[in-house]
């Protein structure tokens, strides 16, 4: 297998009950790349993303056919430890959802449940480190004990990123992480993504094509549950190979 490939999906079909949401999706997501997924809403981007860390298991009656591999390992095999999988593959949601706890407790939650830290001092170090990597430390260092709900929307989303980073994941899945944010906060999150890709493999769903063009190395275009085109971002936006892709990026639908 290819060392450059972090996640590989082979002829994946996904069903919500009898309704099929993904059709024969094949994709290879490269290590330490930012991979963007674009497409009109309802085309299956979130479904695809949530299939990667088996978040869809939580919805009763869903089923995946085909194969999803993380470092060559079958994600859906019965020997896969789903809890560990989700620890390794972190997720950032569209609506920022910090727990109604203090800022500190939010970041410390993951390490705590995963039993990563031996003592409080170690935990303090981790919390500071992750808040720094999420570019939030300077803004919150004086109010770690305050409720996370007191933060602004953009800060909350970066806190969620910090929370995800604290369990030392390998992959970050982001489902429209900036869609609910103002332009300044969006810019901060994008900057952060750019920083993070040095260490993490990132898959980001966005409905904003400029954003995809700005942050990603490779881009996939989804339409009606199919991966229509997958290419280097620059190529996909300047010289799309498929007619549907061109129609979409030139704004003819969606």
């Amino acid at each position, binding site marked *: 297998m290819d060392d450059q490939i972090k996640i590989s999906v082979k002829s994946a079909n996904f069903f919500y009950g009898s309704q099929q949401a993904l059709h024969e999706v094949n994709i290879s997501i490269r290590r330490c790349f930012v991979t963007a997924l674009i497409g009109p809403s309802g085309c299956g981007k979130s479904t695809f993303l949530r299939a990667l*860390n088996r*978040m869809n298991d*939580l919805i*009763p009656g869903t089923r995946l056919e085909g194969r999803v591999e993380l470092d060559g390992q079958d994600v859906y095999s019965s020997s896969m430890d789903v*809890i*560990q999988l*989700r*620890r*390794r593959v*972190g*997720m950032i*949601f569209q*609506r920022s*959802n910090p*727990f*109604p*706890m203090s800022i500190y407790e939010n970041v410390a*939650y*993951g390490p*705590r*449940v*995963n039993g990563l830290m031996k003592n409080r001092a170690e935990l303090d170090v981790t919390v500071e480190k992750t808040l720094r990597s999420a570019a939030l430390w300077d803004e919150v260092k004086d109010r770690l004990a305050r409720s996370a709900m007191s933060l602004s929307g953009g800060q909350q989303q970066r806190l*969620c990123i910090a*929370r*995800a980073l604290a*369990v030392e994941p390998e992959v970050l899945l982001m489902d429209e992480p900036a869609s609910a944010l103002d332009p300044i906060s969006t810019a901060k999150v994008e900057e952060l993504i750019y920083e993070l890709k040095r260490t993490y493999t990132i898959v980001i769903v966005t409905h904003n094509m400029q954003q995809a063009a700005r942050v990603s190395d490779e881009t996939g275009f989804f339409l009606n549950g199919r991966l229509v085109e997958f290419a280097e971002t620059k190529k996909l936006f300047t010289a799309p190979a498929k007619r549907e892709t061109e129609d979409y990026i030139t704004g003819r639908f969606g």
Partner: protein
Amino acid sequence: MRRMVDRTFVAMTLAATLVILAMIAIILGNVVIHGRDRLSWEFLTAAPEQGMMAGGIFPAIYGTVLLVFLMSIVAVPFGVLVAIYFAEYARAESRLYRWTRMAVNNLAGVPSIVFGLFGLGFFIQTIGHGIDQVLYPGYLVYGQPSVLWAAMTMAVLTLPVVIITVEETMRAVPQEYREASLALGATRLQTILRVILPQAWSGVMTGAILAISRGAGEVAPVLFTGAAYFLPQLPTRANEQFMHLGYHIYAMSTQSPDVEATKPILYSTVFVLLVLTFLLNLTAILIRNRMRRWTTR
């Protein structure tokens, strides 16, 4: 003309509201006016004397508190566990869930006297007698009315209150929090214990208080399961009978040889029971209102 009709209509609904509020005020006022004469520290701490015509009601207060205490250490934990099962593990669309949930709902509306029958038939005649046959052959130890069986009966009666309140608050916790926690590599149990339950805490509190208030006020279930009119001594064992505020009121108003003479004590007993249940319910209502504001924000 139309405005007249409209106004009269609104005035009538207002009048109905006032009638209801007046009814409450009359009951409470009457009890407060007549009940406070007799009330004293001694009344609360002394035992009855001269066939209930003198002394206090301490044994009844003690018995009620004991009953409610035993009841809640059973009803609250079990109710919370069932609520966790319903809200977090059971499939909401499964037939099993719908049926069991309906049974719990129905139980909340079954008359309390039926629970009294159940307590007698199940706890005393079946469980209690069973224990006696195995452990104390030939003796009557657990196969008779007692504070233990009254508390168990009351626990079954109040279980639905706890289950329904706690399940409701757990379901009100947004799904996003569950997903966020699981996406961080937490197990389901960790998610429930560390994220969901802390947010449903107000529900647990409300459920517990509603159960306690109900347990303190209901009389029908303890009529045959353990309440006694007069006992010379406080119960010290689980298989002894107990005195109960509500039962005391019932018995004093119907069985006293001289109702006029017992009236002041009777009123004061009612006053004590009212204050107790009123405070409990007020707390529950306040917690729930605060919680509602908190969840809708």
